[in-house]
C-alpha cells in the first residue's frame, strides 16, 4: 500500500498544490442567501439640487414568500423602499447600501423608473453604471413615470405584490394590446448610440381603483439626442409606431364600415413590417410596408359573413385603420422632430454615401420626410360562429 502511494507521488503533490491554491485564495465572492437584499426596482426622481435621488425597492421575503403560498401575507407590506441621495448613480446606490442591513443584490432587478420631470431635464448620466456593473442586468425595463417615480414603487398592486415584479408581468402581457413599447436598457442604449434614432421608453402611471393603487402602462415617452424627453405618444400613436417597427404581436382593431350598423373587432394574429428608403435625385422617400393577418373577433351588425364582399370590406377597413394609426404616429414624430422609427439608420444602411452629406441636415429633413404607407391586410377566420347571432336567430 505504501509503495503504491509513493508511486503516485507526483499526482499527490499536484493535488495538494491545487487544494492549497483553491483553499488559500478564500471565498471573496461568497454571499449567503440570507445576507442578500434582493432589489426589485429602482426609481430616480428629480432632486432640487441636481443630485441623484434614488429609491430602491427591496423585497421583504418573509411577506412576499408567504403571500405566494397562502395568499394572505398577514397585511405586511412585501417590500421596503429605501431612499438615498448621491452625487452620481453609483454613489446613490452605495448610500442605499449603507442604509440597508444587507447587501443590495441587483441581478434580479426588473425595473428602472424615472420621473417625467427628471427625464425632461435630461437623463444622460443615468445609464453608465447600470451598463458597466457586472451584477446588474441590461435586460431591465426602462420606464418613465408621469408623476413621481417613487410613487409607482409605493403602490400595492394585487396578484404580484411587489410593484417592481408587477411591472415585469405587465410587460409580458402588453402584447395583447400592443399599446406600450417594450424597452429594456439594452434597447434604450442602442437607440442612444445611434446617430439619429430617438430613444423611446414606455410611460407608466399610477392607476387608482378606489383605495387601491397599481402601476399601469400606456403610451411612450420620446427623447431627443441629448436624452431629454421631448414628448409623449398616446396609446394609439404608440401602436402606430409599433406597426412600423414590426413589434405588434396582438391587439384589437375596431373597424366601422359605413354600411354596417355596429362596429366590428378584429384580432391581430400576425403583423410584419418592412421599411425601405428610396432616393430619386434629391427626393427621399420612405416606403413602409405592413402585412397584417387577423381573425374576426366580434361582429354585431347583421351582415352576411358568407359573402366574400363582407370580408373584403372588413379587410379594407382594417387596412385603413392601421394606416390611420401609423399616420398619427408619423405626424407626432414629425411634430417632435424625433426619428422614433429609425428611418435615418435605414437610409444609412442602404445609401451610405448619400447619408454622409445628409447626416448633418437630418433634423431639417426629417419633419418634411415623405413617407408612403402600404398596408396588406388579410382577414382569416370567423371564429366559432359562422354567422352573427341575430342572423342565426332570424333563421
Amino acid at each position, binding site marked *: 500500500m505504501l509503495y503504491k502511494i509513493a508511486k503516485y507521488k507526483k499526482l499527490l503533490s499536484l493535488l495538494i498544490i491545487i487544494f492549497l491554491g483553491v483553499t488559500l485564495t478564500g471565498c471573496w465572492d461568497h454571499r449567503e442567501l440570507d445576507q442578500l437584499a434582493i432589489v426589485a426596482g429602482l426609481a430616480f426622481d428629480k432632486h432640487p439640487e441636481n443630485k441623484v435621488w434614488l429609491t430602491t425597492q427591496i423585497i421583504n421575503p418573509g411577506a412576499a414568500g408567504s403571500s405566494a403560498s397562502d395568499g394572505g401575507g398577514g397585511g405586511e407590506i412585501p417590500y421596503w423602499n429605501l431612499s438615498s441621495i448621491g452625487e452620481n448613480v453609483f454613489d446613490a446606490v452605495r448610500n442605499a447600501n449603507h442604509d440597508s442591513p444587507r447587501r443590495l443584490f441587483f441581478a*434580479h432587478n426588473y425595473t428602472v423608473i424615472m420621473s417625467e420631470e427628471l427625464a425632461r431635464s435630461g437623463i444622460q448620466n443615468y445609464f453608465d453604471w447600470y451598463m458597466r456593473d457586472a451584477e446588474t442586468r441590461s435586460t431591465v425595463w426602462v420606464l418613465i413615470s408621469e408623476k413621481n417615480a417613487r410613487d409607482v414603487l409605493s403602490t400595492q398592486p394585487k396578484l404580484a405584490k411587489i410593484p417592481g415584479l408587477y411591472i415585469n408581468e405587465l410587460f409580458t402581457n402588453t402584447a395583447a394590446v400592443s399599446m406600450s413599447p417594450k424597452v429594456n436598457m439594452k434597447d434604450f442604449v442602442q437607440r442612444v448610440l445611434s446617430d439619429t434614432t430617438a430613444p423611446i421608453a414606455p410611460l407608466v402611471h399610477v392607476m387608482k381603483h378606489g383605495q387601491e393603487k397599481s402601476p399601469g402602462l400606456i403610451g411612450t415617452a420620446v427623447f431627443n439626442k441629448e436624452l431629454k424627453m421631448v414628448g409623449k405618444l398616446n396609446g394609439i400613436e404608440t401602436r402606430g409606431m409599433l406597426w412600423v417597427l414590426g413589434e405588434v404581436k396582438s391587439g384589437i382593431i375596431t373597424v366601422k364600415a359605413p354600411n354596417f350598423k355596429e362596429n366590428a373587432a378584429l384580432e391581430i394574429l400576425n403583423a410584419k413590417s418592412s421599411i425601405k428608403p428610396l432616393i430619386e435625385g434629391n427626393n427621399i422617400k420612405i416606403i413602409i410596408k405592413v402585412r397584417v393577418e387577423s381573425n374576426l373577433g366580434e361582429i354585431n351588425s347583421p351582415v352576411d359573413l358568407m359573402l366574400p364582399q363582407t370580408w373584403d370590406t372588413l379587410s379594407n377597413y382594417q387596412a385603413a385603420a392601421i394606416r390611420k394609426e401609423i399616420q398619427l404616429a408619423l405626424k407626432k414624430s414629425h411634430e417632435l422632430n424625433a426619428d422614433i422609427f429609425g428611418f435615418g439608420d435605414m437610409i444609412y444602411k442602404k445609401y451610405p454615401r448619400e447619408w454622409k452629406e445628409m447626416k448633418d441636415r437630418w433634423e431639417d429633413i426629417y419633419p418634411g420626410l415623405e413617407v408612403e404607407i402600404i398596408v396588406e391586410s388579410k382577414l382569416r377566420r370567423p371564429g366559432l360562429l359562422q354567422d352573427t347571432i341575430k342572423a342565426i336567430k332570424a333563421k
Partner: protein
Amino acid sequence: MIKYLSKKMKLAQLLKDDNKKDKTKVEEKSRPATLSTDLKTNLDLFSGIMGNSPDFIVRHFTFGKNRAVKAALLFMDGLADKKIINESIIKPLMYDIHLFDKNQLEMRTMEDIENILLSVGDVQHEAAVDTMISRLLYGDTIMLVDGYQEVLIIDTKGWQSRSIQEPPNERVVRGPREGFTETIRFNTAMLRRKINNPDLTVEQVIVGQKTHTYVALVYLKGIVNPKLVEEVKQRLKRIKTDAILESGYIEQFIEDSPLSLFTTVGNTEKPDVAAAKILEGRVAILIDGSPMVLTVPMLFVEGFQSAEDYYSRPYTASLLRMLRFASFFITLLSPALYVAMTTYHQEFIPTPLLITMKAASEGTPFPAVFEILLMGLVFEILREGGIRLPSPVGQALSIVGALIIGDAAVSAGLIGAPLVIVIALTAVSSFLVNPHQDALILLRFVFIILAGILGAVGIVIGLLFILVHLCSIRSFGTPYLSPLAPFTFQDMKDTFIRAPIWTMLTRPQLISKLNKKREVSGLEPGPEQNS
C-alpha cells in the same frame, strides 16, 4: 514534503523485500503423502490430523464373509448427509451383502465394493492424504478398508444451507426471481441451467491458505477472450492470504485500480444477470460461501443497466436507462449545485423561487454549505442505521428520520425547507445507480465542499477530475469508460438506450473481441416477406 515521501518510499521498498521473503516460505506441515495398508495406523493418522473434534466421526464396522473385513467410515457430522451414509453405505455393506449368494460373498476388493454394493452417485478412489482431508472437510465420506492403501471417497455432501430465494438487492418485476446461494455447487448449477452448453467451462481453484475456499471461474469457451481467462487466473493465483470469507475479499485482491473510488469489478446475486454477462464474453467468479458472484471486466455503463431492461419492452427500458444516467448526476451534483447557486450564483435562480428560498433561509443560523453537509451526514447515518437495525426497530428509525430530522429541523429554524427537498431528491436518486453508490457517497461530499469554496467553477473542476480519472482506468484490459471512450457505435444500442433485442447484433466490441456476432440480422418480427 518530498523528503517525507521519499522516506515512505524507502519503507515501502523494505516491505517489498519482506514480501519476497514471505513468498519463498511455504507454509506446510509434514504429514505422509499416502496411507499405509494397516487400518489402525491409518485411523491414528486421521485422528492425529483432525484432533479430537467432536464433529469428526469414525464409524468402525466389519463385513464380508465371516465378517472378516474390517473397515471404517470417516465423515464430518453436520457436513455429511447422514441419510446417505445410513441408507446407501452402511446398509448395503452390512445388510444387503447377505442377500447375495454365499459364494459371491468373496468381495474383498475395493472395486467390488464400489461396483456392486455402494448405491451412491459419486465414488472415487483416492491415494493422496491431502485430498482426502480436504474432501472430508467438504462433507464427503472416506471409507477405509483394512489392507488397502487407497480409500473410497463417497460424495455425501449435505449440510444445511439457505434455500434459493429472491435476492433482496436486485429485485425485478419481470424476470426470474431466483438468486445465488452460499453454496458454490448450487451456483454453478444455476448457471448451467441458464446456459445449457458444454462450452460453459467451470474452472475451480482454491484460494486462502487457511480457509481453502473454492473459487470457480465460469466462462463460455468460444466467446470469452482466452487472454482474459489467463489474466483472471493469474490474478487469483497471486492471492496468498489466509482467508477468503466473501467475494469482496477476492474483489479487492484482483481489481485494477484499488485507489479509485469507482469499482472495476461487477457483482450480482442473480443467475440470469451472471449468465448474460458470461454470454457477452465476461468471466464470472464464484466464491464458495458468498451469494455474490463477481463478473469481470466491469464497465462504467454497467452500473446503469438492470436485468429488467432486457426483459421489458425497449421504450420504457430506454427511458429508465436515461433516468438512471440523470439520477447519477442528480445524486452527485444536486447538493453541490444548491450550495453553488445559493451562495455564489443567485442570478441563476428564477426570481419567485429565489424569494421563496430566501424566505425559507431567513433566520437559519448556518451557511448553506454547512447546512447541507450536516443534512447529508444525517442522511448517511439514517441509511446506515436503517441497514443495521433489526427490522422492527427500522420502523421507528424511518419515523425519526422523516419527521424529526426533516420536518422538525425546518420548523425549528435549523435549516431551510428547500434543503430538505434537495437532500431527499439526492437520497432517492442515489438508489437508482446502486453499483456506483460507494463512489457517489464520497464524491457528493467532495462536490459540496468544492461548491462551497469555488461555486460552479469548483463543480466543473471536480467533474473534469472525475472524467479524466474515469478515462484513465481500465478493468481487466478494457477501458472503463468504453463504449463511450473509446467510442464504439455498435455498443450505443445498449448504453443510453436499450435498442430492441433484434437490433443488437453484436456483443460488446471490446470485451468479446473474438466472437462478436450475437444473432443474425433481420429478426425483426413482421409479416413474412415474399421474395
